[in-house]
């Protein structure tokens, strides 16, 4: 499906709006959700992993309701004007009507808002949501907020998903989640000011004093601190974290870091506030597609690979409908429609040939744009890049406390 609007332009527009919305959510989150939470009493209880029989029983009693409420991130699905072609095909094929909402601006705020509702066993208004592997997703799994999936109803996932996305460390056997998209955290830079970057040490280069962007997210920034010391985050210890914290503090105290950014690092890079910054692959792909002269590299010491995962909240009203969509998007044809718009890494490798086939049929700009997608190492990463990529570390609640106490003082001094 070829979009009639320049996706990069649309993304640029929604991005500034998304910052607005995200901050507005925070305001709301701090007042309304706070009161709701205080009102319900603060709850939380760790649960045991689900028993196999219980999972089967749960799914056996579910009926298809022909309704689905889907919460996703902005610009994370194919769009044609106000229509979502892939969802329309899903409705045509299954009879399930989808209410699609771009309700998630970041994991922390979304989890912060949903946690009190889920703790109180209330409907959160969604049957399907997309969370990044990380602290919030781990908490959601630990607290039993996610429905264990019935993999007998996910044949397309079994057949078409890349081996690499199956059985991730944060959710063994894909018990609760399967990926929506995958992305990379690497370094983006403006070649006008910065010579070819290969190493993470360039983020510590005194030449770029005050022009370096780092990320506010502690897991992101911690990974880069660890990479710079040659440590694999997955195998890192508390002592490693402290060393990485020191290294990041040095960078900050030397005045190198302009700011610890959220999504707004893209704007800062484009407008020259920073010359070199930690960056997410899809964002930079979009900017380059729009004609901006920017480069993205996976540093030789390592980069982060992360996954945004589909999952079903335990209070979902239409879990079977949600499960059907989860499997539906794993058909190569549908996955192709998605990746051609989303421009992050697809979990379905068979899409590459289909994109090239689409390109062969297309003309002019569309053809060039599709070929760019199929050939981009940001969307189909090379083996060498893949070998350098690591995940966020999976942390227990106790570890998380120590971890945050080391890295938060770096980003919030």
């Amino acid at each position, binding site marked *: 499906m070829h979009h009639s609007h320049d996706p990069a332009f649309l993304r640029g527009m929604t991005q*500034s709006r998304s*910052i*607005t919305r995200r*901050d*507005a959510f*925070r*305001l709301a*989150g*701090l007042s309304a959700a*706070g*009161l709701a*939470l*205080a*009102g319900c009493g*603060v*709850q*939380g*209880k*760790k649960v045991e992993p689900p028993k196999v029989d219980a999972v089967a029983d749960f799914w056996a009693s579910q009926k298809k309701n022909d309704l689905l409420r889907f919460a996703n991130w902005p610009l994370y699905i194919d769009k044609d004007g106000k229509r979502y072609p892939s969802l329309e095909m899903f409705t045509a094929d299954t009879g399930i009507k989808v209410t699609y909402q771009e309700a998630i601006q970041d994991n*922390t*705020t979304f989890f*912060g808002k949903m*946690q009190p509702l889920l703790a109180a066993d209330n409907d959160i208004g969604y049957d399907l949501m997309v969370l990044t592997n990380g602290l919030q997703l781990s*908490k959601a799994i*630990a*607290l039993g907020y996610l429905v264990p999936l019935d993999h007998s109803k996910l044949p397309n996932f079994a057949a078409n998903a890349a081996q690499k996305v199956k059985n991730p460390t944060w959710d063994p056997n894909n018990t609760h989640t399967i990926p929506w998209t995958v992305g990379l955290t690497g370094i983006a830079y403006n070649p006008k000011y910065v010579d070819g970057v290969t190493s993470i040490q360039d983020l510590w280069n005194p030449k770029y004093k*005050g022009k370096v962007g780092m990320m506010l997210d*502690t897991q992101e920034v911690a990974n880069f601190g660890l990479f710079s010391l040659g440590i694999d985050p997955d195998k890192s210890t508390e002592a490693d974290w402290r060393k990485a914290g020191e290294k990041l503090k040095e960078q*900050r105290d030397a005045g190198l*870091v*302009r*700011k*610890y950014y959220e999504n*707004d690092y893209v*704007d*800062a890079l484009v*407008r*020259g*506030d920073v010359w070199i910054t930690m960056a997410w692959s899809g964002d930079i792909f979009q900017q380059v597609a729009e004609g901006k002269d920017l480069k993205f590299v996976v540093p030789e010491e390592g980069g982060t690979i992360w996954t945004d995962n589909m999952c079903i909240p335990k209070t979902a009203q239409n879990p079977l409908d949600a499960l059907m969509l989860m499997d539906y998007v794993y058909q190569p044809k549908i996955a192709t429609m998605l990746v051609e718009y989303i421009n992050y890494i697809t979990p379905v490798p068979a899409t590459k040939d289909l994109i090239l086939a689409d390109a062969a049929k297309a003309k002019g700009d569309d053809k060039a744009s599709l070929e760019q997608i199929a050939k981009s190492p940001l969307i189909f990463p090379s083996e060498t890049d893949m070998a350098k990529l690591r995940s966020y570390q999976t942390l227990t*609640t106790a570890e998380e*406390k120590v971890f*945050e106490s080391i890295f*938060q003082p770096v*980003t*919030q*001094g």
Partner: protein
Amino acid sequence: MRRLAPYLLILPGGLWLAIFLVVPMVFMASVSTQEGDVVNGFVQTFNFSVYGDALVQYRTQFLRSAGYGLVATVVSVALAYPMAYWIAFKGGPRKSTYLLLVLLPFFVSFVLRTVSWKFLLADDGMLLSPLKSMGLVPGDFHVLQTTVAVIGGLVYNYLPFMILPIYVALERVDPRVVEAAQDLYAARREAFTKVVLPLSLPGVFAGVLMTFVPMTADYVNAGILGGPENTMIGNIIQTEYLVNNDYPTAAALSFTLMAAMLVGIFAYARALGTENVLEAAAR
């Protein structure tokens, strides 16, 4: 019935306060002394040490916020007073137009206005780029992610709250009082310092209350315009609450902030407060 009337009149407001102020405060007080985490649950243990710990840990951000709030308030008074004065005394028939202009930014979302500063003040943006190419400022000069940007953002966003009360106070000053002072051989300056200024102090007092408190607790400006060295206490509370899900610490920090501000405001009210202001006005 007639006897009950005053109580019935206060009932909606009283209920409002009880439900939306007192009840949440009690819950927040309770949460602040609980221990635990979001996964294992929180238990009420009357753990008051969280207050001391949080204060020690975030002393820098507390002091920084108070400093920013103070500076921004002083700057606001300095900017707002002449504006209010001009509108009140020289505005003529267009007064309401000028007041509307003061309020006009409110018709655009607070966050959106702050974000657009980022576009205007970007290092290679429409403002700094020409200045740099003309050599008026050095190449590495920047505004964003500095203390000046954060305080500037605070002043910009809260200025109308300072202008309006000062305007209301000045507007009530009878021009004949000023004439009388001049008839009694007061120079223009004396007429201002001895008559107009004292009469307008209640407005300044109200303006300071309405701006200092929210500016000190603000986190949007520091988040959007600030850099690594500009984190305010509001940002910390937000992180403790939404990122760490450490509700006790977030609640304790909120209470500490509130207490500190109440103390500050009471001290200010005593020193320069309503009674003194009224006395000054009566002199």
